[in-house]
């Protein structure tokens, strides 16, 4: 794959590589700078593995002060910087470039404070999403946004991409659960945005930074909202004869004002992939499956389920399977959350992230199937149906350049279809490198210019994650 261009490396930076490495070695403790060429190779990509660029060096700071020192240095000498959490981005958000210093937050993985009185946790940016919930689960709390990669992805990366997850239908995405951050600006200034309260007054800069894709600064600490665990929770499986019926059922459930915690969709190929990995007991004789999770007291769950079953009946639901135990529930979610990785068992894939109005789900599902078939490829659909956030996984053979090019072309067409249906390019994975050149399909020049002006206000030289998000042409001059 080579359709997407990166910025030309700055010759002035490349020619100073040796000095830059020497200076960074001085700024960081021992073992916190990777610079041997062979050791840089594993950092050349993230989970969008089709694209790869070697970085100049990888800094792994242990403190906010060290992050600030590296940023200040890079700012002074005009060295691009690419932030990296766990490198799980499906949009290439953490892919570096030849003249960039990667700042990896993986050594900053401490939970700093849990404050049950205020229902907050303050953590370093390298803490994984799931580690927050693990730290407070014994006390009956959890951190709500749950990207499928929550086992590995970091809160810093979640903030960068404003990540979602299965349970965001009820609880909202990262921005709805983020209260404050410690942010290091490109010149090394350390600022605190927000705090422990729901609103901090003044401009909502926290809202700007969340979803900033590492272009506005580097988050080193975050204060997030903790949510009390519900009395009970129960995932229920609904099997349908067609993807369109399942999609229409979702639209009707939400349209009736029923908001379960999660409504997840899997089509037949996805069911087969996930069942092979998790043995969760998904029904295998259906074309599409919805995992609907309800929560609350037994009575609440029963009442909500009854309404959903009634609506599903109108769409010819074939199987309704209630989960019988906590172990079974865990397996159902394990299968769903491992869907992308498990796809690796049968093929390489690229994962789309378009989001569409629910009424458009059947139309877009049909269109997706047509596009992929036209390119002679296969697709597996597994996504957050409740909020219309689609994830077609386009299957291809990475060792066949022609296959890869067709996969990329199909992906672009699917994303355009989502935008044309009234949706958007990305629901939770971010624009990264993957969707950058489609931004003009979604936004007018005026819209883009405003966004770029805000971005440039934080980083006038465009040093932070520079090849991402905004098309390379038409950027404001530094």
């Amino acid at each position, binding site marked *: 794959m080579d359709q997407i261009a990166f910025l030309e490396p700055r010759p002035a930076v490349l020619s100073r590589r040796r000095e830059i490495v020497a200076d960074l070695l001085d700024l960081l403790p021992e*073992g916190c700078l*990777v610079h*041997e060429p*062979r*050791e840089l*190779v*594993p*950092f050349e*990509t*993230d*989970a969008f*593995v*089709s694209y790869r660029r070697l970085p100049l060096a990888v800094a*792994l700071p242990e403190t906010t002060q060290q992050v600030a020192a590296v940023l200040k240095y890079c700012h002074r000498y005009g060295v691009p910087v690419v932030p990296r959490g*766990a*490198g*799980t981005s499906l949009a290439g958000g953490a892919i570096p470039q030849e003249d960039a210093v990667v700042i*990896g937050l*993986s*050594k*900053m*993985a401490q939970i700093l404070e849990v404050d049950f009185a205020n229902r907050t946790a303050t953590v370093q940016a*390298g803490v*994984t999403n*799931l580690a927050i919930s693990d730290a407070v689960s014994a006390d009956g709390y959890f951190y709500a946004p749950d990207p499928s*990669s929550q*086992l*590995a*992805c970091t809160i810093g990366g979640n903030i960068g991409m404003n990540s979602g997850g299965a349970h965001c239908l009820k609880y909202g995405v990262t921005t709805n659960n983020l209260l404050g951050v410690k942010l290091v600006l490109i010149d090394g200034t350390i600022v605190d945005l927000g705090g422990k309260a729901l609103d901090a007054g003044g401009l909502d800069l926290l809202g700007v930074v969340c979803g900033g894709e590492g272009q506005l600064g580097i988050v080193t600490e975050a204060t997030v909202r903790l949510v009390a665990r519900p009395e009970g929770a129960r995932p229920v499986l609904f099997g349908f004869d067609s993807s369109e019926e399942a999609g229409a059922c979702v639209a009707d459930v939400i349209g009736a004002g029923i908001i379960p915690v999660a409504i997840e969709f899997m089509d037949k190929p996805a069911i087969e992939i996930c069942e092979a*990995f998790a043995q969760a007991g998904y029904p295998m004789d259906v074309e599409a499956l919805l995992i609907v999770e309800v929560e609350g007291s037994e009575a609440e769950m029963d009442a909500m389920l009854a309404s959903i079953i009634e609506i599903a009946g109108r769409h010819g639901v074939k199987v309704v399977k209630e989960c019988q135990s906590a172990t079974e529930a865990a397996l159902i979610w394990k299968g769903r959350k*491992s*869907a*992308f*990785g*498990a*796809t*690796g*068992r049968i093929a*390489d*894939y690229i994962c789309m992230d378009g989001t569409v109005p629910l009424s458009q789900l059947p139309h877009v599902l049909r269109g997706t199937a047509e596009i992929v078939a036209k390119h002679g490829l296969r697709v597996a659909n597994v996504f957050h149906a409740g909020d219309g956030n689609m994830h077609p996984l386009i299957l291809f053979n*990475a*060792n066949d350049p022609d296959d890869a090019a067709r996969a990329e072309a199909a992906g672009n067409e699917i994303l355009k279809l989502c935008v044309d249906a009234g949706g958007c390019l990305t629901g939770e994975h971010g624009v990264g490198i993957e969707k950058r050149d489609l931004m003009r399909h979604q936004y007018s020049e005026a819209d883009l210019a405003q966004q770029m002006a805000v971005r440039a206000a934080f980083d006038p030289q465009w040093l932070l994650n520079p090849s991402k998000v905004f098309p390379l042409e038409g950027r404001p001059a530094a």
Partner: protein
Amino acid sequence: MQTNFTAEQLADPHVATSEKILRKCVHCGFCTATCPTYVTLGNELDSPRGRIYLIKDMLENGRPADAEVVTHIDRCLSCLACTTTCPSGVDYMHLVDHARMHIEETYRRPFWNRLTRNILAATLPYPSRFRLALKAAALGRPFAGFFKRFKAFEPIGAMLDLAPKTLPKASASSKPGTYDAAGERRGRVAILSGCAQPVLKPGINEATIRLLTRLGVEVVAPAGEVCCGSLVHHMGREAQALEAARRNVDVWLAEVEKGGLDAIIITASGCGTTIKDYGFMLRLDPVYAGKAARVSALAKDVTEYLATLDLPQQEAKGLTVAYHSACSMQHGQKITMAPKTLLKKAGFTVRDPAEGHLCCGSAGTYNILQPEISAKLKARKVKNIEATKPDLIATGNIGCITQIATGTAVPILHTVELLDWAYGGEKPVAISNLATKMPA
């Protein structure tokens, strides 16, 4: 993941296998989260995904191993937590095995590192040499601190720290022979005598033989058996490992010919993982491939076999056991429930310590070769175990027993020692002071 090998490279069967493994990886990064060295060091180079990438780069370019790659591969515990986590089914074990062979073939280690590894490979697999070495180590113990002051000698300090103050007497159970079933015979099994374990804790196999014969199973300790080869296998010394494997295959299949075997019982899960892999290790040997696969199919952890005997529920003992699942048990052999179910049936209250997927840092010779990381993992493991407030700890691997015992005062036993007690044997000496608290 895309790979880049020439047809010529793929003609090497080891490369061909590794290429298939690499193709399955989608670089999702899930494995990093459960990797003990990544959570300790916070550097992707010390994570499975990082190592996979380093190995891929080295093999694709047909390069000899270099100091950097060796550093990061050496830091891998081979705990295989990554393979439990991996959704796409990447066979990391065989990939890292290949990398270790490649390192052994193409890289010359610094003198002290080479010497330490040679000493380990020449001592540990041989019970008589190991016994002698431990006696010498007991004399050297006071100097452990001295050695640890020098980077190159750290492993010697670590070895001295691990050596027990006193050694149990040589046990009859490690001598070849047949132990008859009590009453009606319901099965016949061979038992792996092992190498380091009978020197350090002969009581484990003694308890196994007592328990199995009492349950009506004839137990054979065949003559001519050697160390399973796992130690040298993990050092990349494949010829030596395969030699051991072939020898054992011959010994066990001869025993099958003699009187039939329902299983080859293994009481150290580290050995179990390797013996279950004999079929793969010898796949390229036309004479042994089939035989080795038969042996691998017969290999059973002792708890795996006991679980088939349908033992009765015993009265509650009022003792809380923290069950530590060895990595080779839970990740290597995917045995997760059987030991706990057996302990519960035997009347113990069983607790799962937090972060049970993380290695204790023992990992064969890892605690000697990588003492710093190992010590951090041990401290983390002991903290998690002690948080369950156990009366005792049970586990199924001698390495973990030795490692954890040096970090806590809570007694640690092999699962089978507790089962032997629960089903008619004597109370283990290590917990003789522990009062059983019968429920009121």
